[in-house]
């Protein structure tokens, strides 16, 4: 990220425990917009894409209600590989944006709770994130940023179809709302598979977080809407809320069942995972995420609350174990084996820092 004198250090949004934190990790809203009179990115030359970036960034940062000091302007071409990867891990940019690295640009709010991706599938993708289950907060934030942009630059819109997007699956509201849920008990009790199928039939998507193999190990799932045309933003939010409410309740019920019927086995697993995280000298990403999932569950159940743990530490650990974040901390590209040593070291350091806080 750009270093300058105005680089204010802000506490990242994800270290705060949000509503329903025992099950809900975060809420996210993404809004797609394209400028009127400019072809969609597939039809633009490299030069045109760069110009587009300058135009959007210039207008947005000069808009009323925007303090340019709150935003960091990043051209991905200027950023090293680990830096880019860590932005993907923090979901500030999408993997697709990284594929267009030469022209891709992103504005990131300093607390990392919002970003504007420029030069992805659409001209601009605005996203806002909030800790825990707080779709309204993320939605209001993303909407207010979208409105600021629309007031500055006229956007592709028709009365019939709404906001026009490069992919017709986003046309209309251009809105994708999602909640990231930690569902270890529904996975262990094998209820999730059936639920996921039912949700898909209801027009919602259930995905492993980041779509990576480590996500399955971490029991993190993203529930999001699919439709953007013929359904209002309010209905979209309401429908997702109804489903997420139920999933949270089901997960809690499954945890209770597990705690009742297999308390010893589950407790043993949670404690072993804590010991491994605190002492291991090498951790692969997948293992780290699996262990973190266990202690997240144990902490939510109240079993580990006297063990120098906090939601902040759990959230921080989760954010720091990705390969991009590990290498970015180290400042260089590491071989996988070195990376695993480094990851274990970072995890131990974070536990130690938490102990010193008390």
């Amino acid at each position: 990220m750009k270093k300058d004198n105005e680089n204010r250090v802000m506490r990242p949004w994800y270290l705060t425990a949000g509503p329903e934190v025992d099950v809900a990790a975060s809420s996210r809203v993404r809004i797609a917009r394209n400028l009127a009179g400019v072809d969609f990115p597939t039809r633009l030359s490299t030069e045109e894409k760069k110009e587009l970036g300058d135009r959007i960034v210039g207008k947005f940062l000069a808009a009323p209600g925007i303090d340019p000091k709150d935003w960091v302007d990043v051209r991905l071409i200027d950023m090293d590989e680990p830096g880019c990867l860590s932005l993907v891990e923090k979901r500030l940019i999408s993997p697709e944006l990284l594929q267009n690295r030469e022209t891709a640009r992103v504005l990131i709010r300093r607390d990392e709770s919002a970003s504007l991706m420029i030069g992805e599938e659409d001209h601009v993708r605005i996203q806002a994130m909030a800790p825990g289950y707080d779709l309204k907060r993320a939605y209001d934030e993303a909407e207010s940023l979208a409105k600021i942009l629309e007031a500055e630059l006229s956007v592709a819109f028709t009365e019939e179809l709404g906001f026009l997007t490069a992919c017709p699956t986003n046309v209309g509201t251009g809105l994708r709302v999602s909640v990231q849920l930690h569902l270890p008990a529904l996975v262990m009790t094998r209820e999730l598979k059936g639920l996921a199928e039912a949700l898909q039939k209801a027009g919602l998507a259930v995905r492993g977080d980041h779509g990576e193999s480590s996500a399955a190990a971490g029991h993190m799932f993203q529930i999001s809407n699919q439709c953007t045309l013929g359904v209002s933003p309010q209905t979209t939010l309401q429908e997702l809320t109804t489903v997420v409410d139920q999933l949270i309740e089901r997960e809690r019920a499954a945890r209770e069942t597990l705690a009742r019927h297999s308390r010893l086995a589950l407790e043993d697993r949670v404690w072993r995972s804590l010991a491994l995280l605190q002492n291991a000298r090498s951790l692969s990403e997948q293992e780290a995420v699996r262990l973190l999932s266990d202690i997240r569950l144990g902490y939510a159940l109240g079993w580990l609350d006297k063990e120098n743990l906090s939601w902040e530490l759990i959230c921080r650990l989760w954010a720091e174990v990705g390969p991009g974040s590990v290498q970015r901390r180290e400042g260089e590209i590491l071989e996988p084996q070195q990376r695993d040593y480094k990851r274990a070291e970072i995890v131990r350091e974070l536990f130690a820092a938490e102990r010193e806080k008390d």
Partner: protein
Amino acid sequence: MKCTRCHKNEASIEYKSIINGRSREENLCADCARELGLSFAGGTAPSWESLAGMFGNLYNPNWGQMWLPGSLTPDQREVCPHCGMTWREFRSCGRLGCADCYGAFADQLKGLYARVQRGTKYEGRQPAGSQSAAATVADEIAELRAAQALAVKNEDYEQAARLRDRIRALSGEGGSK
């Protein structure tokens, strides 16, 4: 993808032919297609009509993974007049080229909406800002003009001049937008 004939140029034309019951797939560059006598001028791709005429109705794309599998119907040969995107190209990459594509492929997209969307009519707010702001300014100018005309009629030239200046100021702002 490289041309399957010269292995040098980028392929821009894909077709399937069935000859004596054996199907064959080719991806040709514009040059090779011309050499093979596919009639079209100036290096532009042949129309689907001309290809279909040449090979019979044999074109059977297999890129319909997500939507509308099957062969091309006449209305799927459309080309966006603004950006040149063809419906076929869209089907293979899943991205439209520009806002005008929505008009050019309106009929085909309706079929897609039926599968992946909830309806065909937008539900939501209008874009914020510039347009409505511009409308407000235009309304205000119109009101001022009417007042100015009235002032002139009443021979209140001072008032008319004041109104003229305000109209100028407002139009100036509108013009710089």
